[in-house]
Protein backbone atom coordinates (compact mmCIF):
# COMPACT_ATOMS: atom_id res chain seq x y z
CA UNK A 1 0.00 0.00 0.00
CA UNK A 2 1.30 3.47 -0.79
CA UNK A 3 1.18 6.36 1.63
CA UNK A 4 -1.54 8.04 -0.48
CA UNK A 5 -3.75 4.95 -0.38
CA UNK A 6 -3.15 4.69 3.35
CA UNK A 7 -4.22 8.28 3.85
CA UNK A 8 -7.36 7.71 1.79
CA UNK A 9 -8.36 4.60 3.77
CA UNK A 10 -7.75 6.27 7.15
CA UNK A 11 -9.63 9.45 6.23
CA UNK A 12 -12.51 7.49 4.76
CA UNK A 13 -12.91 5.36 7.88
CA UNK A 14 -12.12 7.83 10.66
CA UNK A 15 -12.54 11.31 9.19
CA UNK A 16 -11.59 14.05 11.58
CA UNK A 17 -10.96 11.63 14.44
CA UNK A 18 -7.58 10.65 12.96
CA UNK A 19 -5.33 13.49 11.76
CA UNK A 20 -2.90 12.17 9.12
CA UNK A 21 0.56 13.66 8.45
CA UNK A 22 3.10 12.41 5.93
CA UNK A 23 6.57 13.34 7.24
CA UNK A 24 8.48 11.74 4.38
CA UNK A 25 8.24 8.51 2.33
CA UNK A 26 7.48 5.57 4.66
CA UNK A 27 6.98 7.85 7.69
CA UNK A 28 3.36 8.56 8.63
CA UNK A 29 1.98 10.17 11.80
CA UNK A 30 -1.65 9.76 12.85
CA UNK A 31 -2.96 11.72 15.84
CA UNK A 32 -5.99 10.47 17.76
CA UNK A 33 -7.68 11.24 21.04
CA UNK A 34 -6.98 8.68 23.74
CA UNK A 35 -10.56 7.39 23.54
CA UNK A 36 -10.06 6.43 19.88
CA UNK A 37 -6.63 4.86 20.41
CA UNK A 38 -7.75 1.25 20.74
CA UNK A 39 -10.43 1.22 18.03
CA UNK A 40 -8.02 2.81 15.55
CA UNK A 41 -5.19 0.45 16.47
CA UNK A 42 -7.45 -2.57 16.24
CA UNK A 43 -8.61 -1.47 12.78
CA UNK A 44 -5.05 -0.73 11.65
CA UNK A 45 -4.03 -4.26 12.61
CA UNK A 46 -7.03 -6.19 11.30
CA UNK A 47 -7.77 -4.22 8.13
CA UNK A 48 -4.47 -2.72 7.06
CA UNK A 49 -1.93 -5.22 8.37
CA UNK A 50 -0.13 -3.03 10.93
CA UNK A 51 0.63 -6.02 13.10
CA UNK A 52 4.03 -5.06 14.53
CA UNK A 53 4.70 -2.56 17.27
CA UNK A 54 8.33 -1.46 17.23
CA UNK A 55 8.20 0.48 20.48
CA UNK A 56 6.19 3.01 22.48
CA UNK A 57 7.77 6.42 23.11
CA UNK A 58 6.69 8.69 25.90
CA UNK A 59 7.17 12.46 25.72
CA UNK A 60 6.84 14.94 28.53
CA UNK A 61 5.20 17.99 26.94
CA UNK A 62 4.50 19.94 30.09
CA UNK A 63 0.71 19.97 30.45
CA UNK A 64 0.39 16.58 28.77
CA UNK A 65 2.23 13.37 28.24
CA UNK A 66 2.31 12.35 24.62
CA UNK A 67 2.47 8.66 23.83
CA UNK A 68 3.65 7.49 20.42
CA UNK A 69 2.99 3.94 19.26
CA UNK A 70 5.38 3.06 16.46
CA UNK A 71 3.68 0.50 14.23
CA UNK A 72 4.69 -0.92 10.91
CA UNK A 73 3.26 -3.26 8.30
CA UNK A 74 6.68 -4.20 7.01
CA UNK A 75 7.25 -1.08 4.92
CA UNK A 76 5.52 2.04 6.24
CA UNK A 77 6.33 3.22 9.74
CA UNK A 78 3.05 4.58 11.13
CA UNK A 79 3.27 6.43 14.43
CA UNK A 80 -0.05 6.57 16.26
CA UNK A 81 0.08 9.53 18.56
CA UNK A 82 -2.12 10.40 21.49
CA UNK A 83 -1.90 12.59 24.59
CA UNK A 84 -3.04 12.29 28.19
CA UNK A 85 -3.19 15.12 30.73
CA UNK A 86 -0.42 15.25 33.31
CA UNK A 87 -2.99 15.54 36.06
CA UNK A 88 -4.64 12.27 35.05
CA UNK A 89 -2.04 10.18 33.19
CA UNK A 90 -4.14 7.11 32.40
CA UNK A 91 -3.84 5.25 29.13
CA UNK A 92 -5.47 1.97 28.13
CA UNK A 93 -3.36 -1.10 27.48
CA UNK A 94 -2.96 -2.30 23.89
CA UNK A 95 -1.69 -5.75 24.82
CA UNK A 96 -5.07 -7.25 23.98
CA UNK A 97 -4.50 -6.08 20.39
CA UNK A 98 -0.73 -6.57 20.11
CA UNK A 99 0.60 -8.77 22.96
CA UNK A 100 4.20 -7.78 22.21
CA UNK A 101 3.57 -4.28 23.60
CA UNK A 102 3.74 -5.45 27.23
CA UNK A 103 7.35 -4.53 27.99
CA UNK A 104 7.05 -1.12 26.36
CA UNK A 105 4.00 -0.30 28.50
CA UNK A 106 5.81 -1.40 31.67
CA UNK A 107 8.70 0.84 30.72
CA UNK A 108 6.29 3.80 30.22
CA UNK A 109 5.02 3.28 33.75
CA UNK A 110 8.56 3.20 35.16
CA UNK A 111 9.94 6.14 33.24
CA UNK A 112 7.02 8.58 33.15
CA UNK A 113 4.64 7.43 35.83
CA UNK A 114 1.88 6.83 33.31
CA UNK A 115 -0.75 4.40 34.50
CA UNK A 116 -1.58 1.81 31.90
CA UNK A 117 -5.11 0.61 32.68
CA UNK A 118 -5.70 -3.17 32.62
CA UNK A 119 -2.03 -3.92 32.00
CA UNK A 120 -1.57 -7.70 32.53
CA UNK A 121 1.71 -7.26 34.42
CA UNK A 122 2.21 -3.91 36.16
CA UNK A 123 5.53 -4.69 37.91
CA UNK A 124 8.54 -2.43 37.74
CA UNK A 125 10.66 -3.29 34.75
CA UNK A 126 13.93 -1.44 34.13
CA UNK A 127 14.48 0.65 37.21
CA UNK A 128 16.51 -0.76 40.14
CA UNK A 129 14.65 -2.43 43.02
CA UNK A 130 15.61 0.30 45.46
CA UNK A 131 14.61 3.17 43.15
CA UNK A 132 12.21 5.39 45.12
CA UNK A 133 8.52 5.14 44.26
CA UNK A 134 7.04 8.18 42.61
CA UNK A 135 10.30 9.31 40.99
CA UNK A 136 10.13 9.14 37.21
CA UNK A 137 13.48 9.75 35.55
CA UNK A 138 12.34 10.71 32.05
CA UNK A 139 10.03 13.48 33.20
CA UNK A 140 11.47 16.89 32.47
CA UNK A 141 11.28 17.94 36.13
CA UNK A 142 13.64 15.12 37.14
CA UNK A 143 17.17 16.44 37.22
CA UNK A 144 20.14 14.10 37.44
CA UNK A 145 22.45 14.95 40.38
CA UNK A 146 25.92 16.04 39.31
CA UNK A 147 28.51 13.31 39.85
CA UNK A 148 25.77 10.72 40.14
Amino acid at each position, binding site marked *: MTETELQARITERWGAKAAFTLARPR*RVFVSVAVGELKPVMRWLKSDLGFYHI*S*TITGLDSGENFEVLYHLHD*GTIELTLRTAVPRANPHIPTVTDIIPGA*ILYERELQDMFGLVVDDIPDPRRYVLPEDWPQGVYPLRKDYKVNAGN
Partner: protein
Amino acid sequence: MPGIRIPIGPQHPALKEPESFTFELDGEQVINAEVRMGYAHRGIEKGFEDRTFIQGIYLAERICGICSTSHTTPFVLNAEELLKLEVPRRAQYIRALTGELERVHSHLLWLGVAGHEVGFDSLFMYTWRDREHVQDMLEVISGNRVHYGINTIGGVRRDISTEQIGRLKEMNKLALARTEYYIRLCTAEPTFISRIKDVGRLSKQDALDLCAVGPMARASGVKRDVRKDDPYCCYDEMPFDVITADTCDILGRAVVRVFELIQCYKLIDFILANLPEGDIKIRAPRRIPPGEAINRYEAPRGENIHFMKSNGTDKPDRVKVRAPTYANIPATLVTLKNCFVADIPIIVAAIDPCFCCADRMIRLSDRKGRDDRWSWGQLQHYSREWLARNRRA
Protein backbone atom coordinates in the same frame (compact mmCIF):
# COMPACT_ATOMS: atom_id res chain seq x y z
CA MET B 1 2.73 -31.64 40.92
CA PRO B 2 4.60 -28.74 42.57
CA GLY B 3 7.45 -27.18 40.64
CA ILE B 4 10.92 -26.10 41.79
CA ARG B 5 12.07 -22.51 41.61
CA ILE B 6 15.78 -22.07 41.05
CA PRO B 7 17.47 -18.68 40.72
CA ILE B 8 20.80 -18.40 38.94
CA GLY B 9 23.36 -15.74 39.91
CA PRO B 10 24.17 -12.59 37.92
CA GLN B 11 27.64 -13.58 36.86
CA HIS B 12 28.64 -16.39 34.56
CA PRO B 13 31.93 -17.32 32.95
CA ALA B 14 31.06 -17.44 29.29
CA LEU B 15 30.85 -13.78 28.38
CA LYS B 16 27.87 -11.60 28.55
CA GLU B 17 25.99 -9.60 30.97
CA PRO B 18 24.01 -9.70 34.12
CA GLU B 19 20.51 -10.89 33.45
CA SER B 20 17.75 -12.23 35.62
CA PHE B 21 15.37 -15.03 34.71
CA THR B 22 13.20 -16.96 37.13
CA PHE B 23 12.14 -20.43 36.08
CA GLU B 24 9.41 -22.49 37.64
CA LEU B 25 10.14 -26.17 37.14
CA ASP B 26 8.23 -29.40 37.28
CA GLY B 27 11.01 -31.95 37.56
CA GLU B 28 13.24 -31.25 34.59
CA GLN B 29 10.71 -29.24 32.62
CA VAL B 30 10.22 -25.53 32.73
CA ILE B 31 6.59 -24.61 33.37
CA ASN B 32 7.02 -20.86 33.48
CA ALA B 33 9.74 -18.28 32.92
CA GLU B 34 9.96 -14.67 33.99
CA VAL B 35 12.59 -12.05 33.37
CA ARG B 36 13.95 -9.26 35.57
CA MET B 37 15.77 -6.61 33.61
CA GLY B 38 17.63 -3.53 34.66
CA TYR B 39 21.10 -4.80 35.57
CA ALA B 40 22.59 -2.93 32.67
CA HIS B 41 20.17 0.01 32.86
CA ARG B 42 22.40 3.08 32.96
CA GLY B 43 19.94 5.89 32.19
CA ILE B 44 21.26 6.64 28.72
CA GLU B 45 18.06 8.15 27.25
CA LYS B 46 18.17 10.84 29.92
CA GLY B 47 21.90 11.19 29.33
CA PHE B 48 21.28 12.15 25.68
CA GLU B 49 19.23 15.18 26.82
CA ASP B 50 22.27 16.61 28.64
CA ARG B 51 24.71 16.11 25.79
CA THR B 52 25.11 17.80 22.42
CA PHE B 53 24.34 15.80 19.31
CA ILE B 54 28.02 15.09 18.68
CA GLN B 55 28.53 13.96 22.27
CA GLY B 56 25.38 11.89 21.84
CA ILE B 57 27.03 9.89 19.04
CA TYR B 58 29.77 8.91 21.46
CA LEU B 59 27.19 7.86 24.06
CA ALA B 60 25.01 6.03 21.52
CA GLU B 61 27.99 3.96 20.44
CA ARG B 62 28.45 2.78 24.00
CA ILE B 63 24.92 1.52 24.37
CA CYS B 64 26.41 -1.72 23.09
CA GLY B 65 29.92 -2.90 22.34
CA ILE B 66 28.92 -5.65 19.93
CA CYS B 67 26.53 -3.61 17.81
CA SER B 68 27.85 -0.08 18.22
CA THR B 69 27.31 1.05 14.62
CA SER B 70 23.72 -0.20 14.90
CA HIS B 71 23.09 2.61 17.36
CA THR B 72 25.17 5.43 15.96
CA THR B 73 23.83 5.03 12.42
CA PRO B 74 20.11 5.55 13.19
CA PHE B 75 21.10 8.32 15.61
CA VAL B 76 22.96 10.28 12.92
CA LEU B 77 20.34 9.41 10.29
CA ASN B 78 17.73 11.04 12.57
CA ALA B 79 19.86 14.16 13.03
CA GLU B 80 20.52 14.38 9.30
CA GLU B 81 16.82 13.98 8.51
CA LEU B 82 15.95 16.83 10.89
CA LEU B 83 18.67 18.97 9.31
CA LYS B 84 17.50 17.93 5.80
CA LEU B 85 21.09 17.08 4.87
CA GLU B 86 21.99 15.17 1.72
CA VAL B 87 24.71 12.83 2.90
CA PRO B 88 27.28 11.91 0.21
CA ARG B 89 26.85 8.41 -1.27
CA ARG B 90 30.42 7.47 -0.51
CA ALA B 91 29.70 8.03 3.19
CA GLN B 92 26.55 5.92 3.01
CA TYR B 93 28.46 3.07 1.42
CA ILE B 94 31.16 3.26 4.09
CA ARG B 95 28.44 3.18 6.75
CA ALA B 96 26.92 0.10 5.10
CA LEU B 97 30.36 -1.53 4.93
CA THR B 98 30.93 -0.99 8.65
CA GLY B 99 27.44 -2.26 9.38
CA GLU B 100 27.99 -5.46 7.42
CA LEU B 101 31.37 -6.11 9.02
CA GLU B 102 29.71 -5.63 12.38
CA ARG B 103 27.04 -8.15 11.40
CA VAL B 104 29.73 -10.65 10.45
CA HIS B 105 31.64 -10.29 13.71
CA SER B 106 28.43 -10.45 15.71
CA HIS B 107 27.15 -13.61 14.01
CA LEU B 108 30.53 -15.32 14.39
CA LEU B 109 30.53 -14.30 18.04
CA TRP B 110 27.07 -15.80 18.41
CA LEU B 111 28.07 -19.02 16.70
CA GLY B 112 30.97 -19.38 19.10
CA VAL B 113 28.82 -18.70 22.13
CA ALA B 114 26.14 -21.11 20.90
CA GLY B 115 28.85 -23.74 20.49
CA HIS B 116 30.05 -23.06 24.00
CA GLU B 117 26.52 -23.33 25.43
CA VAL B 118 26.03 -26.76 23.87
CA GLY B 119 29.45 -27.95 24.95
CA PHE B 120 31.17 -27.57 21.57
CA ASP B 121 34.14 -25.51 22.76
CA SER B 122 36.18 -26.16 19.63
CA LEU B 123 33.57 -24.25 17.64
CA PHE B 124 33.91 -21.41 20.16
CA MET B 125 37.65 -21.31 19.56
CA TYR B 126 37.40 -21.57 15.76
CA THR B 127 34.77 -18.88 15.30
CA TRP B 128 36.48 -16.44 17.63
CA ARG B 129 39.79 -17.06 15.85
CA ASP B 130 38.08 -16.26 12.53
CA ARG B 131 36.39 -13.28 14.07
CA GLU B 132 39.83 -11.77 14.64
CA HIS B 133 40.15 -11.36 10.85
CA VAL B 134 36.95 -9.33 10.85
CA GLN B 135 38.24 -7.25 13.75
CA ASP B 136 41.36 -6.61 11.67
CA MET B 137 39.19 -5.44 8.79
CA LEU B 138 37.33 -3.06 11.10
CA GLU B 139 40.66 -1.82 12.39
CA VAL B 140 41.81 -1.12 8.82
CA ILE B 141 38.72 1.03 8.25
CA SER B 142 38.38 2.77 11.57
CA GLY B 143 41.47 2.31 13.71
CA ASN B 144 39.69 0.36 16.43
CA ARG B 145 38.42 -3.20 16.88
CA VAL B 146 35.33 -2.22 18.91
CA HIS B 147 33.57 1.18 18.98
CA TYR B 148 34.68 2.31 15.56
CA GLY B 149 33.67 5.96 15.83
CA ILE B 150 33.10 6.04 12.06
CA ASN B 151 29.83 8.00 12.05
CA THR B 152 29.40 11.72 12.39
CA ILE B 153 26.49 13.97 11.56
CA GLY B 154 26.78 14.59 7.83
CA GLY B 155 28.82 11.52 6.91
CA VAL B 156 31.73 9.46 8.13
CA ARG B 157 34.96 10.50 9.75
CA ARG B 158 37.44 8.38 7.81
CA ASP B 159 37.87 7.51 4.18
CA ILE B 160 39.09 4.24 2.70
CA SER B 161 42.10 4.27 0.37
CA THR B 162 42.55 2.06 -2.69
CA GLU B 163 45.27 0.11 -0.91
CA GLN B 164 42.92 -0.54 2.02
CA ILE B 165 40.20 -1.70 -0.37
CA GLY B 166 42.62 -4.26 -1.81
CA ARG B 167 43.49 -5.57 1.65
CA LEU B 168 39.83 -5.74 2.65
CA LYS B 169 38.95 -7.76 -0.46
CA GLU B 170 41.62 -10.35 0.41
CA MET B 171 40.46 -10.58 4.02
CA ASN B 172 36.84 -10.96 2.88
CA LYS B 173 37.80 -13.96 0.70
CA LEU B 174 39.48 -15.61 3.67
CA ALA B 175 36.48 -15.03 5.93
CA LEU B 176 34.16 -16.53 3.31
CA ALA B 177 36.31 -19.65 2.97
CA ARG B 178 36.26 -20.18 6.71
CA THR B 179 32.48 -19.75 6.86
CA GLU B 180 31.96 -22.62 4.40
CA TYR B 181 33.02 -24.92 7.26
CA TYR B 182 30.35 -23.47 9.54
CA ILE B 183 27.68 -24.06 6.92
CA ARG B 184 28.61 -27.73 6.75
CA LEU B 185 28.51 -27.82 10.55
CA CYS B 186 25.06 -26.34 10.87
CA THR B 187 23.53 -28.43 8.15
CA ALA B 188 25.31 -31.76 8.46
CA GLU B 189 26.97 -32.29 11.85
CA PRO B 190 24.62 -34.63 13.75
CA THR B 191 25.88 -33.98 17.31
CA PHE B 192 25.51 -30.23 16.96
CA ILE B 193 22.15 -30.50 15.22
CA SER B 194 20.73 -32.89 17.80
CA ARG B 195 21.30 -30.28 20.51
CA ILE B 196 19.44 -27.55 18.68
CA LYS B 197 16.83 -29.26 16.51
CA ASP B 198 13.25 -28.86 17.86
CA VAL B 199 14.56 -26.90 20.84
CA GLY B 200 13.20 -23.48 21.71
CA ARG B 201 10.26 -23.54 19.32
CA LEU B 202 8.54 -20.28 18.41
CA SER B 203 5.62 -20.58 16.01
CA LYS B 204 5.14 -18.04 13.24
CA GLN B 205 1.95 -16.74 14.84
CA ASP B 206 3.69 -16.22 18.17
CA ALA B 207 6.58 -14.48 16.46
CA LEU B 208 4.11 -12.05 14.84
CA ASP B 209 1.94 -11.50 17.94
CA LEU B 210 4.90 -10.96 20.24
CA CYS B 211 6.68 -8.69 17.72
CA ALA B 212 9.88 -10.72 17.49
CA VAL B 213 12.58 -9.28 15.24
CA GLY B 214 15.73 -10.34 13.43
CA PRO B 215 16.95 -13.92 13.03
CA MET B 216 14.61 -14.96 15.85
CA ALA B 217 11.61 -14.01 13.70
CA ARG B 218 13.17 -15.00 10.37
CA ALA B 219 13.77 -18.54 11.65
CA SER B 220 10.01 -18.76 12.22
CA GLY B 221 9.29 -17.81 8.63
CA VAL B 222 8.66 -14.08 9.12
CA LYS B 223 10.37 -12.49 6.12
CA ARG B 224 11.25 -9.08 7.59
CA ASP B 225 14.54 -7.24 7.19
CA VAL B 226 14.74 -3.46 7.58
CA ARG B 227 17.42 -3.28 4.87
CA LYS B 228 14.87 -4.57 2.33
CA ASP B 229 11.62 -3.19 3.77
CA ASP B 230 12.73 0.32 4.74
CA PRO B 231 16.13 0.80 3.09
CA TYR B 232 18.74 3.20 4.47
CA CYS B 233 22.39 3.85 3.54
CA CYS B 234 21.80 2.91 -0.14
CA TYR B 235 20.81 -0.70 0.64
CA ASP B 236 18.15 -0.43 -2.09
CA GLU B 237 21.04 -0.34 -4.60
CA MET B 238 22.73 -3.44 -3.23
CA PRO B 239 21.91 -7.04 -4.16
CA PHE B 240 21.27 -9.43 -1.29
CA ASP B 241 18.65 -11.95 -0.15
CA VAL B 242 16.68 -12.05 3.09
CA ILE B 243 17.32 -15.44 4.65
CA THR B 244 14.45 -17.22 6.38
CA ALA B 245 13.89 -20.71 7.71
CA ASP B 246 10.67 -22.50 8.57
CA THR B 247 11.87 -24.84 11.32
CA CYS B 248 10.96 -22.32 14.09
CA ASP B 249 13.67 -23.70 16.38
CA ILE B 250 17.26 -22.93 17.32
CA LEU B 251 18.55 -24.89 14.32
CA GLY B 252 16.61 -22.44 12.15
CA ARG B 253 18.16 -19.48 13.95
CA ALA B 254 21.66 -20.93 13.46
CA VAL B 255 21.05 -21.63 9.78
CA VAL B 256 19.63 -18.12 9.24
CA ARG B 257 22.67 -16.50 10.86
CA VAL B 258 25.18 -18.63 8.98
CA PHE B 259 23.57 -17.98 5.61
CA GLU B 260 23.29 -14.31 6.47
CA LEU B 261 27.07 -14.35 6.83
CA ILE B 262 27.31 -15.37 3.17
CA GLN B 263 25.02 -12.49 2.22
CA CYS B 264 27.23 -10.15 4.24
CA TYR B 265 30.34 -11.22 2.33
CA LYS B 266 28.45 -10.62 -0.92
CA LEU B 267 27.46 -7.17 0.24
CA ILE B 268 31.00 -6.35 1.37
CA ASP B 269 32.35 -7.39 -2.04
CA PHE B 270 29.72 -5.28 -3.79
CA ILE B 271 30.46 -2.23 -1.65
CA LEU B 272 34.21 -2.51 -2.13
CA ALA B 273 33.79 -2.92 -5.89
CA ASN B 274 31.27 -0.08 -6.27
CA LEU B 275 32.36 2.54 -3.74
CA PRO B 276 31.18 5.88 -5.21
CA GLU B 277 33.65 8.70 -5.63
CA GLY B 278 33.15 11.92 -3.73
CA ASP B 279 33.28 13.47 -0.29
CA ILE B 280 32.86 11.55 2.90
CA LYS B 281 30.88 14.19 4.74
CA ILE B 282 29.15 17.50 4.48
CA ARG B 283 29.17 20.21 7.06
CA ALA B 284 26.37 20.01 9.61
CA PRO B 285 25.18 22.87 11.85
CA ARG B 286 25.37 22.42 15.60
CA ARG B 287 21.79 23.37 16.28
CA ILE B 288 18.99 21.24 14.87
CA PRO B 289 15.63 22.89 14.08
CA PRO B 290 12.56 21.56 15.94
CA GLY B 291 11.15 18.33 14.58
CA GLU B 292 10.79 14.61 15.06
CA ALA B 293 12.45 11.79 13.19
CA ILE B 294 12.33 8.03 13.36
CA ASN B 295 14.83 5.66 11.83
CA ARG B 296 15.07 1.91 11.84
CA TYR B 297 18.20 -0.14 11.32
CA GLU B 298 18.75 -3.86 10.84
CA ALA B 299 21.18 -4.67 13.65
CA PRO B 300 22.68 -8.15 13.79
CA ARG B 301 20.00 -9.05 16.34
CA GLY B 302 17.10 -7.48 14.52
CA GLU B 303 15.23 -4.22 14.11
CA ASN B 304 16.71 -1.33 16.02
CA ILE B 305 14.56 1.80 16.19
CA HIS B 306 15.58 5.31 17.24
CA PHE B 307 13.23 8.25 17.73
CA MET B 308 14.61 11.76 18.08
CA LYS B 309 12.85 15.00 18.94
CA SER B 310 14.77 18.24 18.56
CA ASN B 311 13.86 21.69 19.87
CA GLY B 312 16.13 24.13 18.06
CA THR B 313 19.03 23.87 20.52
CA ASP B 314 22.26 21.91 20.24
CA LYS B 315 20.93 19.17 22.52
CA PRO B 316 18.11 16.74 21.72
CA ASP B 317 14.82 17.12 23.55
CA ARG B 318 14.20 13.37 23.60
CA VAL B 319 15.91 10.31 22.22
CA LYS B 320 14.18 6.97 22.42
CA VAL B 321 16.10 3.79 21.68
CA ARG B 322 14.58 0.34 21.39
CA ALA B 323 17.20 -2.29 20.73
CA PRO B 324 16.32 -5.65 19.18
CA THR B 325 16.93 -7.90 22.18
CA TYR B 326 14.28 -5.94 24.09
CA ALA B 327 11.77 -6.81 21.39
CA ASN B 328 12.69 -10.49 21.53
CA ILE B 329 12.22 -10.97 25.27
CA PRO B 330 8.48 -11.79 25.27
CA ALA B 331 9.14 -14.32 22.50
CA THR B 332 12.03 -15.82 24.47
CA LEU B 333 9.84 -16.41 27.50
CA VAL B 334 7.49 -18.40 25.24
CA THR B 335 10.34 -20.46 23.81
CA LEU B 336 11.47 -21.33 27.34
CA LYS B 337 8.15 -22.84 28.33
CA ASN B 338 8.10 -26.64 28.31
CA CYS B 339 11.81 -26.92 27.62
CA PHE B 340 14.22 -28.90 29.77
CA VAL B 341 16.47 -27.13 32.30
CA ALA B 342 19.44 -28.44 30.35
CA ASP B 343 18.27 -26.52 27.28
CA ILE B 344 17.96 -23.16 29.05
CA PRO B 345 21.50 -21.93 28.21
CA ILE B 346 21.19 -22.54 24.50
CA ILE B 347 17.64 -21.17 24.27
CA VAL B 348 18.62 -17.93 25.98
CA ALA B 349 21.78 -17.74 23.89
CA ALA B 350 19.78 -18.37 20.70
CA ILE B 351 18.16 -14.94 20.77
CA ASP B 352 21.73 -13.60 20.72
CA PRO B 353 20.99 -11.60 23.82
CA CYS B 354 22.50 -8.21 24.12
CA PHE B 355 21.08 -7.13 27.44
CA CYS B 356 23.25 -4.08 27.65
CA CYS B 357 21.23 -3.01 24.65
CA ALA B 358 18.04 -4.09 26.24
CA ASP B 359 18.98 -3.89 29.53
CA ARG B 360 20.46 -10.67 34.03
CA MET B 361 20.48 -13.68 36.66
CA ILE B 362 18.67 -16.93 36.56
CA ARG B 363 16.38 -18.07 39.30
CA LEU B 364 14.57 -21.38 39.20
CA SER B 365 11.82 -21.78 41.74
CA ASP B 366 9.10 -24.22 42.84
CA ARG B 367 5.65 -23.79 44.29
CA LYS B 368 6.71 -25.35 47.57
CA GLY B 369 8.80 -22.26 48.16
CA ARG B 370 12.26 -23.75 47.57
CA ASP B 371 14.50 -21.17 46.02
CA ASP B 372 17.92 -22.07 44.59
CA ARG B 373 20.42 -19.77 42.95
CA TRP B 374 22.71 -21.11 40.28
CA SER B 375 25.48 -19.43 38.37
CA TRP B 376 25.36 -19.69 34.61
CA GLY B 377 28.47 -21.88 34.76
CA GLN B 378 26.68 -24.29 37.08
CA LEU B 379 23.70 -24.35 34.72
CA GLN B 380 25.95 -25.08 31.75
CA HIS B 381 27.73 -27.84 33.63
CA TYR B 382 24.41 -29.33 34.74
CA SER B 383 23.08 -29.04 31.18
CA ARG B 384 25.98 -31.02 29.70
CA GLU B 385 25.81 -33.74 32.35
CA TRP B 386 22.04 -34.10 32.08
CA LEU B 387 22.11 -34.32 28.31
CA ALA B 388 24.94 -36.86 28.40
CA ARG B 389 22.68 -39.05 30.58
CA ASN B 390 19.55 -38.42 28.51
CA ARG B 391 20.97 -38.40 25.02
CA ARG B 392 18.53 -37.47 22.33
CA ALA B 393 18.08 -39.80 19.36
